[in-house]
């Protein structure tokens, strides 16, 4: 049994975070200074840098500020930016969470706004700390999975082991999300064969074709030079490894950023914008995807790495599963699970899968991950545009 914080909408969080959110880059410094004295006290910094309004960014911020892991939100505005701060504040207030908006221009500049923001946090932290965790089932958990800094070992050890963990979580009634259609290029036919029905299979193929077109327009695949140094030759080969994260279960649907899976099972998160190529690369780095997995309701993130990524995230704990035994030896302090043991013959795939499944439950009961302990709280949100989900994406 896990331990969670019950929210007014009935969902439960595995953390009780106060987020400080800047609503334009011009307010970033002030927001960071407001949060700085509360390091290690569950105060996380998030934000959106753009000055121009964007429906995707507004929707993401609403989902993040009302995420089950979040207990309260402080919004930091410059005052003249295009972000609809009133709508965001109303959404947070309607969710039953303490929320306060501080405007730098109205408050009288940097120093006064920092003082006012810190004062609000000092008053609010004890309020949200009074909430006691309650028992929580695995069927109340949404888990997202991502790989970053992949190499040729990722697809042999960590990714299939996370797939085993996904199958176990789904059997217990959890909602699970895998992602990055740009890193599923070449896997579309295999994926379609696992769809809950043929219409969803067609949508899965369409989402990958969209990603291939998008990346082709931009000139690069979702493939870093380090992937090739690590032995991955083509995007198809990287995809083959990435795809193993999804396990063996039936694929129950497709979601887009901010849309929560409606019921238990396995869902693909389509992260590639719809329409013409407009704002650049779909996901400029791993944290952009992690933020989207969290906005879909993920309370815990599974992150596999072969080359050795160190990132964590604001709002949700990130469990690092290290695929490469040499990387684990070099970077053990950053890694929660040593999946490279599979390559060395010291553990089997089902054993490591079970270890990840057990760790998800401990982290879901409050045990900190390595990246949390080290203070990692990376966050990034940029411009995108999406059309609504097609009717075949979420079969009943």
């Amino acid at each position, binding site marked *: 049994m896990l331990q969670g914080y019950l929210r007014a909408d009935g969902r439960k969080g595995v953390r009780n975070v106060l987020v400080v959110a800047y609503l334009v880059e011009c307010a970033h410094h002030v927001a960071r200074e407001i949060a700085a004295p509360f390091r290690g006290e569950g105060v996380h910094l998030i934000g959106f840098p753009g000055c121009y309004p964007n429906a995707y960014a507004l929707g993401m911020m609403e989902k993040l500020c009302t995420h089950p892991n979040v207990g309260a939100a402080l919004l930091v505005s410059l005052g003249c930016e295009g972000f609809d701060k009133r709508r965001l504040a109303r959404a947070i207030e309607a969710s039953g969470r303490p929320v306060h908006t501080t405007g730098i221009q109205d408050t009288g500049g940097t120093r006064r706004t920092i003082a006012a923001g810190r004062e609000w946090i000092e008053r609010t932290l004890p309020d949200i700390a009074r909430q006691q965790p309650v028992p929580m089932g695995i069927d109340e958990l949404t888990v997202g999975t991502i790989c970053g800094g992949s190499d040729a070992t990722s697809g042999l050890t960590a990714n299939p082991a996370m797939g085993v963990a996904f199958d176990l979580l789904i059997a217990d009634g959890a909602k699970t999300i895998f992602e990055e259609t740009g890193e599923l290029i*070449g896997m579309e036919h295999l994926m379609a064969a696992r769809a809950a029905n043929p219409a969803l299979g067609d949508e899965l193929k369409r989402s990958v074709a969209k990603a*291939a077109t998008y990346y082709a327009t931009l000139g690069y*695949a979702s493939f870093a030079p380090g992937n090739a140094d690590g032995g991955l030759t083509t995007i*198809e080969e990287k995809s083959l490894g990435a795809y193993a994260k999804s396990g063996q279960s039936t694929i129950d649907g497709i979601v887009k950023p901010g849309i929560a899976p409606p019921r238990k099972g396995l869902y693909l998160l389509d992260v590639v914008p719809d329409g013409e190529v407009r704002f650049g690369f779909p996901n400029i780095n791993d944290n952009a995807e992690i933020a989207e997995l969290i906005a879909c309701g993920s309370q815990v993130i599974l992150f596999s790495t072969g080359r050795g990524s160190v990132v964590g995230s604001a709002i949700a704990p990130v469990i690092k599963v290290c695929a490469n035994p040499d990387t684990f030896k070099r970077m053990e302090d950053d890694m929660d699970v040593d999946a490279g043991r599979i390559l060395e013959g010291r553990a089997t795939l089902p054993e490591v899968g079970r270890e990840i499944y057990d760790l998800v439950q401990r982290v879901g009961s409050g045990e900190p991950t390595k990246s949390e302990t080290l203070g990692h709280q990376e966050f990034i949100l940029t411009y995108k545009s999406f059309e609504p989900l097609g009717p075949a994406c979420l079969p009943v």
Partner: protein
Amino acid sequence: MASSDRPAPAVMRLSPADNVAVALRPLKAGESVMLDDVAITIGRNIAVGHKLAARTIEKGEIILKYSCPIGTATYRIAAGEYVHTHNVASNYLPTYTLPR
């Protein structure tokens, strides 16, 4: 762990249909390794997880790993030779690497 006369395998073919195998430990140029009871000679040093040809692969042949197509051979590749970006191309999007 039961003792065994056979050394730990150095390479593994992930699926019987595959024309490439992966290195389970660093492989040295010129060394001989067993793959499915056939000895093959390693062409050059190969790092853990990287690929080698499990048999002769003709130019234009699809590379299969875990029974999945991962690209097309751009040259003829002899058994035991290193298989990577210098002799395989994507069928979707080109692979980007930094200049050496």
